């Protein structure tokens, strides 16, 4: 079978890119892993998030903003096509602070970024009382918050399902349980899997998350990515307690309160630790004391896919033109950008976004 694009990796990044390409009338085959694969797409926190991103690289802040701005139409289109509501809510989000110092320091950084971005960085600072009017459940230890109006959240699992559904509906082929073992190129790319399945395509997108650590170098990429563990907690379903999401806690559309997340450099270990659970629980209770009585029903560890500077990588292979590495740790936030704008870049269209700063050239050759 021959496709215009073969996409290695059927998570949110791969599927949103596939969806965008299919919308342009291209033929797409997605090769997805199995039930046991590391899957950031089903372990992430579900924020559609702008604030704090790109503090050192304003282009990344912009790229996140562009995606956040495109999310509403993206989600509406998915909803119309599949009948699935992916639970998008963009009413703003908080960065909660437990000390005046940290709040002021962060605000100072945001002011600088705001100026760099020509003023498009709509945030406001809420003192404790103002915050309490917005979030009656907030605890006394929270001195204030930065409310950023471009922030929001969605239900990442519903997004995953809607994309899987609509990619198929649009004629995309999704092959599950595939372990890609080799990628080579003559006229066309040939992707070979462990079970001897072969897929041929004009172009290839490598969006295999941590799978790119091994596949990337085989395809001429540096792929300098590493796993970073994030432990996440979720409570039983509760009546409405939290109105807007923060990096500490958000109430998901089904009612559970999701609490996150650790940042741990532990390699490919995605286990959950008592230490991690207890630390996250303590922080969440400090923010929302009523959570002390909530039952934790599940927790998990998921592995973020991080580049050395934390920014996404968009790179065409110098050795295999037509092969692209697409990887990031904000697959939910950037889903709309990957669906709407990235296909133009992959196709070399005039309207392609400038993704130069996200190339691998920024990393020294090791």
């Amino acid at each position, binding site marked *: 079978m021959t496709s215009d694009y073969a996409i290695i990796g059927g998570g949110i990044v791969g599927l949103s890119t596939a969806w965008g390409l299919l919308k342009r009338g291209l033929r797409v085959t997605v090769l997805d892993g199995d039930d046991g694969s590391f899957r950031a797409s089903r372990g992430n926190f579900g924020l559609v998030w702008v604030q704090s991103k790109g503090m050192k690289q304003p282009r990344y802040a912009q790229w996140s903003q562009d995606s956040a701005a495109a999310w509403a139409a993206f989600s509406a289109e998915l909803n119309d096509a599949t009948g699935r509501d992916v639970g998008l809510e963009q009413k703003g989000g908080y960065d909660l602070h437990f000390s005046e110092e940290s709040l002021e320091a962060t605000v100072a950084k945001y002011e600088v970024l705001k100026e760099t971005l020509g003023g498009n960085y709509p945030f406001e600072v809420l003192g404790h009382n103002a915050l309490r009017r917005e979030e*009656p*459940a907030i605890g006394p230890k929270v001195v204030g918050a930065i409310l950023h109006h471009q922030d929001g959240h969605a239900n990442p699992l519903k997004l995953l399902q809607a994309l899987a559904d609509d990619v198929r509906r649009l004629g995309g082929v999704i092959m599950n349980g595939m372990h890609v073992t080799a990628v080579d190129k003559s006229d066309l790319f040939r992707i070979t899997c462990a079970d001897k399945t072969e897929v041929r395509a004009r172009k290839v997108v490598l969006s295999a998350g941590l799978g790119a650590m091994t596949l990337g170098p085989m395809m001429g990429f540096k792929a300098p990515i590493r796993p970073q563990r994030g432990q996440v907690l979720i409570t*039983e*379903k*509760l*009546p*409405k*307690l939290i*109105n807007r999401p923060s990096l500490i806690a958000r109430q998901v559309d*089904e*009612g559970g309160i999701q609490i996150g997340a650790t940042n741990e450099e532990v390699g490919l270990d995605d286990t959950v630790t008592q230490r991690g659970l207890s630390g996250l629980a303590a922080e969440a209770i400090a923010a929302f004391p009523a959570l002390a*009585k909530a*039952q934790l029903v599940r927790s998990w560890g998921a592995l973020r896919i991080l580049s050395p500077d934390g920014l996404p990588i968009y790179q065409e292979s110098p050795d295999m033109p037509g092969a692209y590495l697409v990887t990031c740790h904000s697959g939910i936030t950037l889903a709309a950008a990957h669906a709407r704008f990235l296909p133009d870049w992959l196709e070399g269209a005039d309207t392609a976004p400038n993704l130069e700063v996200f190339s691998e050239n920024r990393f020294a050759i090791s």
Partner: protein
Amino acid sequence: MKTALPFREIDPVGNKVSITFGGIDLMLPLGENLAGALLVAGVMPFRNTPVSGAPRGPFCMMGACYDCLVQIDGMNVQACMLQVSEGMEITMPVVGGTADA
């Protein structure tokens, strides 16, 4: 016409103490398994699910299924894993709705 309740104590023992379930006063045997005592008292359902609002009651009686959840002191707990104590105030777990603006 049936008058007997579905659950019956065959060897009633123990002192009865007063508790409330959903604001209704009940006399239950002190120290008895709470789910069992509520069943004998004719309580059903124990809760409505947060997903569809469907009624539920004890299913496994061994702490595994979580269908006998009730709310005591603001916490959702398994009735089958508790014992009756004097003055327990029990309600069905609160589901859905908005607690604030």
